[in-house]
């Protein structure tokens, strides 16, 4: 009967994580909009504004253009939302281990991260608008650019852990148990900080936010990938955007800021889990502020060629330097 219990647990966990993902994701978008408004000396929308937006979009007419491939056009938003919720099942929340821990690791997460973006690309191509096609091409180019630095970050951390003889270094539970900062010396510390910087810069590209929002580019491509989407399809992409924000921030927290306060306070049971989740949500807001809000309020949009150059040359090179630093650190420390 144990597989049935597993299935039941997975079902309950899946529903709980989906609700948490949608609510927390939209909340993060609202906090982001409020903070940007405050930085521009505006009052800004209420924090629940994204919820109102999604509610409104669900009541609007849903238009499928004449030239669109209807099944793909309607399927892409569902795939984008569901696949970004699936990633959450592999990520720890506070001190609670992932629902699917033991079934997948960092490498799987890296592959899963491409699926929401691919759904966007498929939706863009299937909508039959030249603006959406150009947007989809740009989204693919952006994906190709940020994969290299992202892979370097994941591999560098896992390799440094395996160099210390820690088993199963790609598992997020292991990474949370042995934070990178506790393993390394001064050189490795610099390497780790460089990796953190790279992941902070990969996050806005993964979410196609300013300055890497070339695929959507409201002023040149009229909304790019999403140009033909309206009503509930647009609402699903909007929600998926929030969930993706939550996913990227959770990954960054799991890799670089895994500490929980319950151990320090000597608490146990439900209270500890509650405090850890509250602290985790606080960390989420800080990470989103640093990687999305602050960057979005400060700079303008890059051209697509500049995006590729930045990720491959600048961040790729920095990643390799960080790898070398971590390598020297591992040899010197051992």
């Amino acid at each position, binding site marked *: 009967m144990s597989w049935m219990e597993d299935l039941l647990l997975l079902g309950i966990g899946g529903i709980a994580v989906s609700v948490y993902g949608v609510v927390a994701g939209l909340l993060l978008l609202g906090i982001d*909009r409020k903070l940007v*408004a405050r930085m*521009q*000396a*505006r*009052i*800004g*929308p*209420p924090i629940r*504004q994204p919820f*109102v*937006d999604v*509610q*409104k979009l669900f*009541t*609007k*007419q*849903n*238009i499928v253009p004449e030239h669109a491939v209807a099944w793909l056009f309607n399927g892409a938003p569902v795939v984008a939302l569901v696949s970004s919720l699936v990633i959450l099942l592999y990520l720890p929340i506070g001190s609670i281990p992932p629902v699917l821990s033991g079934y997948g690791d960092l490498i799987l997460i890296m592959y899963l991260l491409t699926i929401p973006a691919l759904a966007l690309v498929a939706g863009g191509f299937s909508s039959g608008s030249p*603006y959406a096609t150009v947007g989809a091409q740009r989204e693919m180019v952006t994906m190709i650019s940020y994969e290299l630095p992202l892979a370097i970050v994941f591999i560098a951390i896992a390799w440094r852990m395996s160099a210390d003889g820690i088993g199963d270094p790609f598992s997020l539970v292991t990474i949370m148990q042995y934070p990178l900062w506790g393993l390394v010396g001064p050189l490795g510390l610099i390497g780790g900080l460089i990796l953190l910087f790279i992941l902070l810069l990969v996050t806005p590209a993964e979410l196609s936010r300013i300055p890497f929002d070339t695929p959507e580019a*409201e*002023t040149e*491509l*009229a*909304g790019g990938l*999403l*140009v*033909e*989407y*309206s*009503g509930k399809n*647009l609402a699903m992409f909007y929600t998926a955007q929030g969930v993706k924000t939550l996913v990227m921030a959770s990954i960054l927290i799991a890799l670089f800021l895994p500490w929980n306060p319950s151990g320090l306070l000597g608490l146990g049971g439900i209270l500890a889990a509650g405090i850890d989740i509250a602290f985790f949500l606080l960390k989420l807001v800080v990470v989103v502020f640093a990687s999305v809000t602050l960057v979005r309020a400060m700079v303008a949009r890059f051209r697509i060629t500049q995006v590729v150059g930045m990720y491959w040359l600048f961040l790729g090179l920095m990643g390799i330097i960080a790898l070398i630093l971590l390598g020297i650190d591992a040899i010197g420390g051992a």
Partner: protein
Amino acid sequence: MNPIQTLKRSLWVFHLNTGSCNGCEIEIVATITPRYDPERFGIRLVGSPRHADVLLVTGPVTGKMIERVKRVYEQVPDPKVVMCIGTCGQSGGVFFDSYNLKGPIDDVIPVDVYVAGCPPRPEAIIHGVVTAIAKLERREGGA
């Protein structure tokens, strides 16, 4: 869930120029600056008519634009509001009786709210949005 209740707190605006002199455009851009900050009411400019709830139409409709105006109007998903910004759209303004005008706008598409002025001030445009919300509520009460 009441559609109008959420719609009026999250109005997304698409702006369409049908041959305006750009005076109204500058005032529309002035309306979304931090000084007036319409985003605190959920109002924001979007790049595609498919995302829009409000269609801001400026300018007297020129002969070339007449088909495009109709197409953009049809591309906006229901429920929608059309606002005519500036005197041109109502009467032709300084271009009155020109050989190439097919306007005014309400001969081409149905208009809900008129904002007069050449160009109207940002306060007038915001008042127009408030009028549009009031009209939506009336329509909801009547229905």
